[in-house]
């Protein structure tokens, strides 16, 4: 049997501003079920901003890091340049000597359009 406190279920609310934007956590609200949570989410947190999609997730269903995990599992040494472009910056000079440009992020991301035949 339900009692009044069961009405107050915690839902986390996520939304996306545009097609290129990631889902972003907004805030949490109380609602008795996910349909109600969805119906209230937009006007509670996105009254003044663009929104093209919304997710609501019951807080209990989220496996969050514990306090200890946040302290312990999120730290990394700063020795992983081999994993990023930072470790390969010397190529710029090499290519320059061979009179070629560097295929850096800006260049590669500009390859969206390929010349039509």
């Amino acid at each position, binding site marked *: *049997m*339900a*009692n*009044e*406190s*069961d*009405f*107050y*279920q*915690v839902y986390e609310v996520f939304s996306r501003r545009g097609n290129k934007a990631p889902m972003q956590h907004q*805030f*949490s*609200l*109380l609602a*008795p*079920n*996910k*349909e*109600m949570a969805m119906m209230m989410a937009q006007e*509670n947190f996105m*009254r*003044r901003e663009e929104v093209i999609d919304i997710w609501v997730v019951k807080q209990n269903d989220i496996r*969050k890091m*514990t*306090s200890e995990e*946040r302290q312990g599992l999120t730290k990394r040494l700063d020795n992983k340049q081999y994993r990023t472009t930072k470790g390969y910056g010397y190529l710029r000079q090499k290519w320059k000597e061979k009179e070629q440009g560097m295929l850096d992020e800006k260049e590669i991301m500009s390859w969206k359009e390929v010349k039509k035949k």
Partner: protein
Amino acid sequence: MYNYVEDGDSKTTAYVESDKEKYEAFMARIEAGEKIEADDWMPDDYRIALIKLISMHGISEIMGALPEKEWVPKAPTLRRKLGIMAKVQDEMGHGQLLLRVAEDLMKPLGKNRESLMKDLLNGDLKFHNVFHMPTKTWADAGMVGWLVDGAAIISQTNMLDASYGPYQRALQRICQEEVFHAQHGESIIMALAEGNEYQRSILQESLNRWWPSLLMFFGPASAETTGSSKQDIMIKYKIRKSNNEELRQAFLSKYMPRVFALGLTVPDETIRYDEKEEKWIYKQPDWEEFKQIIRNKGPRSKERLRLREIAYENNSWVREALATKAVTV
């Protein structure tokens, strides 16, 4: 928009001896500017102070909607009706954000939204002194929007770097909306100040009426004045940066020139800025009255609580009905 926390009888100590190491790590984290989250270890007096502060702040937003709301259906034009409605809606929304933060902190104590509403109605949870006051004319709606919100903005922005993460994140959202609130209030006031004689007279009367409440807004300068104040612990734990008097001085510095620029006066002929001491000198409000007000003995305390009580009790069938959906879905 709450700032002043009545101490009550709480004699909470920070930590038990066996937690000394945790306490030191906690202090080191907040000294380093890290943010504390709801499920992190925290000193008892930090948790208690946060619960008190944030639940009072949240419930003050909800109660604060009521005096302004009196003027929502009455606002004089369609544009004013829409503006004040959006503004009061925001206040309810701020209450929502803050109560959610408080509820997560209270979860280990087995409390939720229902407990907060019950605590408000039985008098255990207090709300801000300004919201115990009557609003008599449309000018009061403007005054609440302009100066009461102005004071609230001063006190809230002071906590934007608060050590408690969820509170600080809620405040970011709130302060962004407050920019709209400030301009909404100014817009009502500006129309009255530039209006006809009747409009200017209700504006001046309103400021006279709200003046003591505005001075009281930030709470007493020191604990001696009223026998209680949690301001020191708030600063120690980096929840806010400045003390009550510093905030009041900041408020006077920001707003008095504007008050005078509109041709308004305040009911204190002695008020002046002392260049040498670099501070505003003003007549103290009646702090005895302040104590009465925040004990729900203000001019409109009973009526406002009654509204909240009816809204809550009379609609409980709705929450009971949908609670069954929470169980079945």
